[in-house]
Structures are given as C-alpha cells and as structure tokens.
C-alpha cells in the first residue's frame, strides 16, 4: 500500500502526487501480480522505476525466489544462443533491476541518516517563548559578577531567528537606499553577510578561547554571539528608517556597547589571566562594534544631489531619499534647497 509518510521518508518526492489516492491505482497492482515469470517486463520497469520502494521490495523478493529456481536452470544452459533473445534479455533485466534496487536502498538509507542528524540538533531547540524573551532582554544587560563563571544557555533557536531577522532588516535597508549589487544578488549578499558573521566570528572567537584557556563550548559561543546580534537588529531597524547620522552614532555606542559589554563580561568571567582576558575580549569587542558600523555604512548611499546643493551654517543632517519618491518631488526638493542656500 502506498502511504504518504512512508513515501516522504524515503525521499521519493516525484511520487508525491500519487500518494493520496492509493485506491485509484489498482491497475498498477494488477500489472505486478499478473507477471509470475522469471523475465522482468522492461516496459513495466520504465513506468514504475523509482516511484515506490515498497514495490521494488516486492519485486526484489520475487526475484530472490525466482533466482533459486533460475540458478538451477541456468546451470544446465551453458550455451546462451539456444535461448535466443528472450533469455539474454531476462538476465540483463534482472541485473538492471537489482542495481536499481541497490541504488534506491542506498539513497533511502542516506535520507534516513540525514533525518537522524536532525535529531542531534533537537535538544538545542528545546525552549519556551518566555525563555526566549527573557534571554533577549538579558542580552542587553551586562552583569557585574565576573568572579564566578556566568551561565550561558546553549540554545540555537533564538540566535537563528535573530540572524534571519537581521537578514530581513538588511534587505529592507538595501532596497530603500538604492544599493546596486553587481556580482550576485541582494538576498545572497544579505544572507552571506549575516550567516558569515555569526558562524565565522563564533568559530574564530572559539579558537581564540581555546588558545586562551577559556571555558566555553562552541554551542555556547554561537548562542552568545547570536543573542548579541539583538542590539544590532534594534539599531539597524531604527536607523534604516530614521536617517540621522548623530542618532546612529548614539545608538552605536549605547546599544552596541551594552550588548558588547554583556558578551565581554561573560567571557571575562570564564577566563583566567589578564593577558588572555584582554586578547579575547578586545577581539570580540572590536569585531562586534565594527560589524555594526560596517552594516550601517556599506549598505547606505547618501544621495549626491542634496550634498551638492546644501551649504552654509544651517545644514540639516544628511538625508537619504527612498526609491519610491517620484522624480518631480525630488526636483522640487532640489530647487527649494538651492533657493534656501542662495538666500543664506
């Protein structure tokens, strides 16, 4: 019987359309039961190849039973010419079917082992929403206690969601600031940047922690850095929409600084020795703050026209023009700005 979950587990996506209506495919079963001979019908093979592993299993079973009989018969027939084409095709057909069955079985076991690998990650996703919320808020609060190793939750759901949120915010910023990416796509760049930072810097700091004898595991490092991106998300979300340079610098120092301080405090509490603490925490602080700076400036473009026309002491902060403003409005803006500059 063909069934949905069974087909899914074996990875036979192509047969998905037929899974829900097993009863209507009675004709298929008739074909299988009709042929009781040792010769595999090649036309039927083409129709059913790869569609259902259970049917291949049935065929294989039948082939095994027939093999016992056929081996006794084949032992007598040394000369294949007397059998003619039918005999030759029979052996070839059996070999091909056998190979296909083996290949299919290998694929199915590979798919099963991939599924088992997902279970390895399961304990890291065992969280409640209230825990995630608490950890998000705690990531902005540096703890003063650095004499005892502070607890880090080894959880991957929060960091993963934060990285994806950062990707979405980055996309928003890139689109509204008219960023043109020559090699590659906007989405690819955003995903590559955020995941590259999270995984790459985590690994690098973990390597440094190994050198400096800090007590931290890879999952804990991933978790710590992931939650540290919460500050980045807030800062970028606000400053991509309200475009003031000074506001960005304040946010960079305050919010970026708070989340960096928290990560630094956790690492300091888990490291012994002044030099080691300095190396580890200095590197992390520098990378974290510089990343926020990079994200802000690399994906923004100051509109050239307004820079040219505005001079004088009453200069408003740099403005960025969203893509959707029609040409007429920006021309009016430029003319007004020029008029103001002339009268000053």
């Amino acid at each position, binding site marked *: 019987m063909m069934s*949905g*979950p069974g087909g*899914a*587990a074996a990875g036979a*996506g192509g047969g*998905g*359309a037929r*899974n*829900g*209506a097993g009863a*209507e495919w009675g004709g298929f079963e008739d074909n299988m039961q009709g042929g009781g001979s040792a010769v595999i019908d090649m036309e039927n093979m083409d129709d059913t190849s790869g569609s259902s592993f259970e049917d291949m299993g049935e065929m294989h079973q039948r082939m095994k039973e027939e093999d016992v009989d056929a081996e006794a018969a084949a032992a007598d027939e040394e000369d294949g010419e007397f059998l003619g084409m039918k005999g030759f095709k029979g052996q070839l057909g059996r070999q091909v079917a056998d190979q296909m069955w083996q290949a299919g079985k290998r694929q199915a076991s590979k798919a099963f082992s991939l599924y088992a690998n*997902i279970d390895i*990650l*399961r304990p*890291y*996703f*065992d*969280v*409640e*929403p209230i825990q*995630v919320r608490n950890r998000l808020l705690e990531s902005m609060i540096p703890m003063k206690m650095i004499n005892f190793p502070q607890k880090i939750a080894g959880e991957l*759901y929060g960091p*993963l*969601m934060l990285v*994806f*949120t950062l990707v*979405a915010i980055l*996309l*928003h910023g890139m*689109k*509204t600031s*008219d960023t*043109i990416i*020559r090699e*590659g*796509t*906007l*989405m*690819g760049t955003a995903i590559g940047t955020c995941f590259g930072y999270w995984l790459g810097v985590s690994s690098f700091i973990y390597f440094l922690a190994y050198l400096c004898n800090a007590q931290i595991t890879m999952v804990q490092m991933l978790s710590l850095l992931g939650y540290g991106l919460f500050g980045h998300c807030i800062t970028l979300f606000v400053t991509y929409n309200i475009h003031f340079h000074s506001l960005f610098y304040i946010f960079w120092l305050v919010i970026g600084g708070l989340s960096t301080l928290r990560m630094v405090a956790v690492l300091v509490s888990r490291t012994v020795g002044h030099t080691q603490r300095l190396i580890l925490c200095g590197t992390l602080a520098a990378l974290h703050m510089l990343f926020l700076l990079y994200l802000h400036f690399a994906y923004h473009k100051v509109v050239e026209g307004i820079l040219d026309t505005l001079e004088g002491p009453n200069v408003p902060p740099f403005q960025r023009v969203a*893509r*959707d403003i*029609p040409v007429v409005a920006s021309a009016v803006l430029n003319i007004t700005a020029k008029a103001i500059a002339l009268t000053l």
Partner: protein
Amino acid sequence: MRDLKAVGKKFVHVMYPKKSSALLRDWDLWGPLVLCVSLALMLQGGSADSKEDGGPQFAEVFVIIWFGAVVITLNSKLLGGTISFFQSLCVLGYCVLPLTVAMLVCRLVLLASSGTVSFIVRLVVVMAMFGWSTLASTAFLADSQPPNRKALVVYPIFLFYFVISWMILTFTPQ
C-alpha cells in the same frame, strides 16, 4: 484531471482557511511549484539595472521560497512538531497564493500609474494579503505544535512571508 482537481481544491482551502485536514492528508507539490514559478516570473526585471539583473531575479525568488520553506519546516520539526516534512512544505507553498494574487494586483496598478496613490494602494493590498497568508498557514501548521510553543513556530512564518511581501512591494518595472 484528477491531479488538477486536487490542486484546485487545495487552492480553495487556502482562500477560505478552515480547520480541514485535506491540505495535510494528500500533500502534493504541484501547486507550490506553479505559484513559485509564476511569482518569480512576475518579479523579474524589476531592479535598477534591468539589463544586468534579469537573470538572477528568477533564481533569487525561487531559492528564497524553497530555502525559506525548508528552514521553517526544519524549525517546526525541531521544536517538536508532529507534521511531516513534505506536508509542511505543501502548506507553506500553497499559502503563497494570496501573495501571488497581490503581485498580480500590484502589476496591474503599476500599469495604470506609479505615483504616491498607487503606492498606498499597493501597500494596503500587499499588507492585507500578507496577513491572509500568515493566518492561513498558521491555521494549518500551528495545530501540530505543543500549545505553549505556537509563537515560536509562527514567528519564522511571519518573517518568511514578510520578506516575500517586501519583494513584491518594492517591485518597480522598467
């Protein structure tokens, strides 16, 4: 013909999301494929440098939808969901239908005019369809989760449809 009817029935289920298990029981990926391809085709050629970026647009949308759906499915399974891999893919793919309708409407509105009024109209339409997509997919998927973790599963779905809605809203044809 039987397959077409099954696909059509699922489209109707998405537009009127009731607690029926038809979408889940007989999953298929025809509908999501058709929706994904049509959305990707409509989103093509909508960047600043259209002569250079015509190619990647299609692949970009395709990859985002399928990669995003796979990630959400893995996430919901890791959080202890009882739904199978392809069932979840099926639901997420079919719930892209309201957004495809929104894309169609946006293209028609952009044919007429491209000023502030059309932007507001497009914004309203896209936001409404985004809400509809998210509600439809949570109606099907959230039931398979333990009750106190529904928010954890809904958030990635929200993010996924938000990214697609954002791509639709910022589309400007050349």
